[in-house]
């Protein structure tokens, strides 16, 4: 298994130094080599399990239950201004 660690790191939005990449690459490869034993299992026609139980989704009635808690909710924000979250410029 050959993994482009830098590409996966970019998808994950995690900066990796070359040293970290050099260490992580083989580790990921050994994990995925281990995981590859799944290919031995015959799963022809087997349905996938996404949830452990066969349950249906409960629904919520359409009633407003939340008021304005902006100050409390922004108390742990790294950077806000006039109630807005501030981030480095988003380039479109």
């Amino acid at each position, binding site marked *: 298994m050959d993994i482009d660690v830098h590409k996966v790191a970019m998808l994950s939005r995690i900066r990796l130094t070359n040293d970290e990449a050099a260490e992580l690459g083989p580790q990921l490869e050994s994990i995925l080599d281990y995981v590859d034993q799944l290919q031995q299992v015959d799963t022809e026609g087997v349905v996938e399990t996404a949830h452990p139980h066969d349950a249906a*989704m409960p*629904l919520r009635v359409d009633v407003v239950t*939340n008021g304005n808690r*902006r100050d409390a909710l922004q108390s742990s924000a790294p950077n806000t201004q*006039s109630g*807005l979250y501030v*981030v*480095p410029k988003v380039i479109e």
Partner: protein
Amino acid sequence: MSWETVIGLEVHVQINSKTKAFCGCSTTFGADPNTQTCPVCLGMPGQLPVLNTEAARKSALTGLAINGQINLESKFDRKNYFYPDLPKGYQITQFPVPIVEFGHLDIPVPDGIKRIGITRIHMEEDAGKSMHEGLDGVSHIDLNRSGVPLMEIVSEPDMRCADEAVAYLKQLHQLVRFLNVSGADMEKGQFRCDANVSVRRFGEPLGTRAELKNLNSFRFIKQAIEYEVARQIELIEDGGEVVQETRLYDSVKGESRSMRSKEEAHDYRYFPEPDLPPLRISQQELDAIRAGMPELPGALRARFETEFGLSSYDADVLTQTRELAVWYESLVAAHPADPKRCANWMANELLGRLKESGLNISSSPVSALRLAGLLDRIADNTISGKIAKDVLDAMMASGDHADAIIESKGLKQVSDSGAIDDMIVKVMADNPQQLEQFRAGKDKLMGFFVGQVMKASKGQANPAMVNQRLNKLLKG
């Protein structure tokens, strides 16, 4: 060399529920930034989504209205990407098993109607809003819109020109408003369109498509598609190749530019949303949704034509929205004698005046009952149609009954033959030359005399009676 255009549309329609898709925050437009947020729609640690019933019901209703197949079990998935206005770093959406599949919409085209396939309707949550303008090196994020429920309605690539695309969008726009599943206000971003556009030489397989993002008016959609078609044809004819990319249309410059970022192609890593079990709708629930379905625009239009004898033009105008149709039907109920008069007065007189004042039918100062009252006075010859227009102006301004205005302004029609005869005699005396010519056989002057008498009566003389008395008196 002749080219064929192929267009498919993805429309994001904001569902008009009171609360967001997965939390109890209000969806009211225009609130102060981030005042309609909670730990769930801010993606805070440990917070979990619970689906809004209205999002599911309204999506299913829309699916029924486009003759789609409603999946009694549908599933939610996570679409992963990083963006500051996407709090969780993933959007909850529906990928392999959406709530609706295989529908269609019939649209008017120059030579009849054309059926446009609708691949699917899936539910998803909206992102927040990023603001950049006037800010130095930073962007501001407002998450009030984060988590607002959307339906994404995806068409088949069945449209062959910009006009068809616009016709489809108008039809869809009308439908979702009729169903009361969305306000569909394009200025508020409640009805947003992305267009997939490609060109090919006739008979060839599909060309590479470009995706045009965020087209927010019917006019820009047409312009953007036409610009894109021309761009692609020119590119290919110059020996170039269309690349699959996302393009942003600039309505000010009238051109589009590529939005493709260099760093990576999107890889959304969709997988089943583990926080939400499958959504199941029972056949009974679906039947109940179907039973609550309003009469759809097409059926309503046809009924207005047959039941009330309206022209197809009037029928179309009066079924543009459900409010208009309902208003018209209450007008007819109050003035049943003449549905066509009702249609004329509503479509031509009332709607024109409302538009001039920046109002719409729901904010009309003249109710259907009051307009019917005015039409009754035309029917019983109390006033002429011409006077009635003045009365309507006064009703718009004051909100009064027609009768009160007619009374206070003394606009009652003169139907007294003695009074009309007096006016005719005076007009004949004042215009001896015309009288002579008329009597010499110039019949066309009849109109002149009618005009003079009406003028003398300040428009209040009963026109039928004026005609009848003139016929008698002019001949001498």
